């Protein structure tokens, strides 16, 4: 494709079929600041589960925070998870040392729900490809 003739790139010279696409499809991807690839070189990170703001809360299987002692919920982790442990947990489901698999799923879901500004978010973001 010629790189310079941009202005006419989408003006067809003959009638072309234009497909609008399914409602759930996506045709716009926005470039976001990316730290993921460099994270290994810049950051040795940890994620507390849960963050200090919610210390003592239990973590429900869906990752939400619930009152201490809620049946079926996982207790808070005594130590933060290291970046490598989080990566393995999220990518292959392998459980961190000393954690049963049901709790590990709850912790994984908690981490997936982290948002910017919450403790552990930059660590989580650095382990992911940009959304």
């Amino acid at each position, binding site marked *: *494709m010629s*790189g310079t003739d941009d202005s006419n790139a989408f003006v067809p010279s003959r009638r072309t079929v234009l497909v609008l696409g399914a409602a759930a499809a996506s045709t716009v*991807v926005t*470039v*976001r*600041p*990316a*730290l*993921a*690839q*460099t994270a*290994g*070189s*810049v*950051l*040795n*990170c*940890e*994620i507390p589960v849960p963050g200090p703001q919610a210390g003592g809360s239990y973590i429900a299987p869906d990752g939400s925070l619930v009152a201490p002692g809620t049946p079926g919920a996982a207790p808070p982790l005594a130590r*933060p998870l*290291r*970046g*490598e442990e989080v990566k393995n947990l999220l990518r292959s489901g392998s459980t961190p040392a000393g954690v049963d698999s049901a709790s590990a799923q709850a912790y994984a879901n908690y981490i997936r729900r982290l948002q910017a500004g919450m*403790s*552990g*978010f*930059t*660590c989580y973001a650095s382990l992911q*490809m*940009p959304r």
Partner: protein
Amino acid sequence: MRHELALRIGPVAFRIGSAWRSPLDALARLYAGYPAPEDGLCDFTVRLEPERPWRRFIRPSVAIRGDYILPDAAPLSLAHGLLAAEMGMNLQMALGQRTWLLLHAATVEKDGRAIVMTGESGAGKSTLAALLGERGWRLMGDEFALLDIGSGALLPFPRAISLKNGAIGVMEAEVEAGRFGPRLAGTPKGDIRHLRPNAEAIARMDEGAKPALILFPRFGEAAAVRGVGQAEVFMRLTQASTNYVALGRRGFDALTDLVRNVPALAIDYPDTETAVGLIADFRRELAA
């Protein structure tokens, strides 16, 4: 700060301050032969300091701080202080670099043509660049490529190469012992040993090169080469750049120019020697 050291690597100057002496001693040995910044003027400040005041003495732990800081960063043990200094410099570049478009990529050059190799960690680009740097190519950098926005040239940033686990043995067989830093066992990323680039890479650290090929190497697969479409290259390079968004329009112009003017290939390789052979073939084709 109690101890400090200034270093210039290509166009970027750092000052590193530390509460302890040992990380800076290790850094000075590793970067022997590098120039000092002119008049001591530095672009970035790195600080290695105790997380809490008493942690300078009791179970010393090195927090990585500086001009730019990430929350959630965990401290390293003092035994890994050299790694902390290296990560501190990387962190300043990743978060604070606003002059050049920064790509997370290794770069080697021959006859004025540069090959940019990028990919996720573990793709083997560091090892590949280190080995090419000993086999007749000039190593421009194993971690960050700096794209000059006006000229489209790549600038060298020949930091010490960070070798991990298996790559350490590969390079120990290739390079004299005096260019290695200490072996750092049991870091959060496994075993790490730093390697000082050779004398040519350091002597020519102010000499840029035109990008001639963008490579997306992937280690551990049967040898294969495929072309990569421009849109995919653009997307992958924005994901490899920490400052693309912050550079605004200038970043857009520089990156679209690069993508339209430089061919790109993805290569799979089962071992480093195979990749070195493939890259030698590319070079002949580019020269032809």
